[in-house]
């Protein structure tokens, strides 16, 4: 069981004893229903993803971006999944699994609120009770999603402790789960946490790369030179990469939040970024051994990103392993460059991307600017697939405020329309 729960040295099951029986039960359910399709679970899941979730999503050639960067750019449109992000792929899978397991209550944490809304939607769709934990900081910067969760009849519990972001929301959800473990399933929102979550969430999300791989061969006649996806916990990342991992000729780029700087303030316990893959150090957090932002004593640092969904001090163990194996290249894009990319895609392609996805899009610019000059950024090649993990409606307040405050070039002025 130990080797099945790990990716090299990463992964494992580091949780309080009260949760272990539930994790064993979940592991068993994962193996039977997801891996072996018992009772036709996977057929039902795929059917619901299609009819309720709106899959498959298009792989769209981005004509004006292609022209700008002088390469073929294709966008995997996860923003068009019901609810506006890839998060439904996993939430629907786990809520359905909870029903198969006979659980009658769901808890979940959320950062950007996309996982929370996806879980609330799936619970409403399948008729099961739902409670969501969300950090206070994230509640304030993702208000539309708070209301969407409430509209679907989910309870939203604010978490005030610490920085009020995803890490604290996960702590709070784990405590709830440990209290109510007998009738409750914890729908974790990314490829993080104890085994079997990292594998199970990846399996639910790999529909992204299954579709994209087929679509690009059909539309471009070959496999891409690279796939680019943003990485918070890493679920859209693993989803977009999984089916390409065996294709050695395809480069995989995980774009982390570079925040305002890649330095660390040990004294304050703060990292002004969320780049745990490229700057983090091995440790144990939220049930798994993985790469973390921590100080030299092992205390977890508060992370930062302008995008709530990337603002997390850890990352999925499989992604950490693939980076050590040099199969995945971790890169990063800062707050300002992500905001620029947000406006660029909105103007050039008529698509408003999530701030999280804007990091992935920001890397196109960075790679094109810098490799021409110095070649110090790995090349994307001629045919690139970028995963647009979600749409940016939830981010409009933040984008208007932050673009103004930071004087983002590409941003339109909203001043004359105010108040």
């Amino acid at each position, binding site marked *: *069981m*130990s080797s099945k729960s790990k990716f090299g040295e990463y992964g*494992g*099951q*580091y*949780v*309080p*004893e*009260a949760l*272990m*029986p*539930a994790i*064993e039960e979940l592991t068993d359910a994962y193996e039977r229903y997801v891996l072996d399709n018992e009772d036709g679970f996977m057929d039902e899941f795929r059917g619901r993803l299609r009819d309720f979730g709106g899959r498959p999503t298009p792989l769209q050639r981005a004509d004006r971006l292609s022209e700008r960067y002088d390469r073929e750019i294709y966008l995997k449109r996860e923003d068009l999944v019901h609810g506006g992000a890839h998060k439904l792929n996993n939430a629907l899978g786990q809520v359905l699994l909870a029903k198969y397991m006979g659980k009658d209550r769901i808890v979940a944490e959320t950062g950007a609120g996309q996982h929370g809304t996806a879980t609330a939607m799936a619970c409403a769709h399948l008729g099961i009770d739902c409670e969501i934990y969300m950090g206070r900081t994230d509640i304030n910067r993702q208000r539309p999603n708070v209301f969407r969760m409430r509209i679907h009849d989910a309870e939203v519990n604010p978490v005030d*402790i*610490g920085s009020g972001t995803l*890490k604290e929301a996960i*702590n709070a959800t*784990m*405590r709830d789960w*440990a*209290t*109510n*473990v*007998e009738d409750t399933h914890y729908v974790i929102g990314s490829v993080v946490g104890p085994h079997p979550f990292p594998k199970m969430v990846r399996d639910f999300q790999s529909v992204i790369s299954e579709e994209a791989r087929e679509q690009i061969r059909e539309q471009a006649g070959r496999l891409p030179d690279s796939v680019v996806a943003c990485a918070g916990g890493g679920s859209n990342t693993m989803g977009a990469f999984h089916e390409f991992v065996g294709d050695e000729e395809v480069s995989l780029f995980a774009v982390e939040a570079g925040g305002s700087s890649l330095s660390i303030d040990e004294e304050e*316990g703060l990292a002004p970024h969320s780049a745990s893959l490229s700057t983090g*150090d*091995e*440790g*144990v*957090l*939220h*049930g798994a051994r993985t790469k*973390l932002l*921590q100080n*030299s*004593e*092992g*205390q*977890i640092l508060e992370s930062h990103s302008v995008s709530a969904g990337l603002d997390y001090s850890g990352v999925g163990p499989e992604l950490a392993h693939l980076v050590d194996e040099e199969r995945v290249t971790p890169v990063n894009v800062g707050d300002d460059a992500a905001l620029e990319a947000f406006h660029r895609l909105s103007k050039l392609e008529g698509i408003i991307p999530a701030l999280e996805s804007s990091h992935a899009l920001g890397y196109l610019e960075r790679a094109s600017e810098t490799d021409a000059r110095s070649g110090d950024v790995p090349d994307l090649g001629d045919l690139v697939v970028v995963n647009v993990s979600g749409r940016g409606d939830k981010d409009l307040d933040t984008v208007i405020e932050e673009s103004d405050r930071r004087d983002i070039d590409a941003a339109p002025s909203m001043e004359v329309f105010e108040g």
Partner: protein
Amino acid sequence: MSGSEREREIESKHESDIEAAFADEPALVSYVAAGDPNAEETKEYVRALVRGGSDVIELGLPFSEPIAEGPTIQQAIRRALDAGMTPDRYFDLVADLDVDVPLVCMTYYNLIYQYGTSEARRASEHASGEAASQRGVEPFVAAAAEAGISGLIVPDLPVDESAPLKEACDAHGLDLIFMVAPTTTDDRLERMLDRATGFVYVQGRLGTTGARSDVSDETHVSLGRLDQTELPKAVGFGISEREHAREIVGGGADGIIVGSAFVDIVASQENVAERLEAKASELKAGALEARAEVPEPERT
């Protein structure tokens, strides 16, 4: 003590000092977070808890993500971290404590796992390759033993991930104490009892630490499942009053573990040492009463 001496001790079923603390009468295991509100006061509070009749002191080494703790202890840990508590300062604090009851370190796995790295980093600032190879649980256990710690409780380390730490604890003569939850399956219980020394930490109810107003029925069920164990059984999670102590010891426990009720007193900042001593005596008295009243413990 060397590793092989320790092994011989275990083989001959000789008690560790923690096991011995449960030998004569029902034990009171008292928790405070080290460094809440600062190291000096923690020492004073530990002495007060010992004067009040505590038989074992559980000293929390604060971790930034205490997922097994309820609000009371979470906040205590926050205060201790804000006041600058670190593993090294913790070991200094422990080494300074001149109490004659066993001390147990309660902390989370990441701090144990990282300790070797930060040690090596301190030793040689620039040899990052060496630093990485130093990582592992042994340096922490060695430092804990050196400071005078008798045992470890690591709530986020389940038995199946515990082999490396168990090995280090055996080598340095520390007890590794496991928690049994109401949901623990028979299978898991067996694996735990295979590895456990010191005492068995019986989690009185599901959820997190925190004082409650009643004793859960789950406690009695859990105790019943541990009938066969020779190790002492101590019940924690929710105990705050004399009556709880009496009921739990009456139900067959060899000891009680009390944390949040003490941490509440520390948080109040009023006559803390005096009130800790009084609270400890009250709880100890409850435990003793149970033994006096019920020679043949009634089991539910």
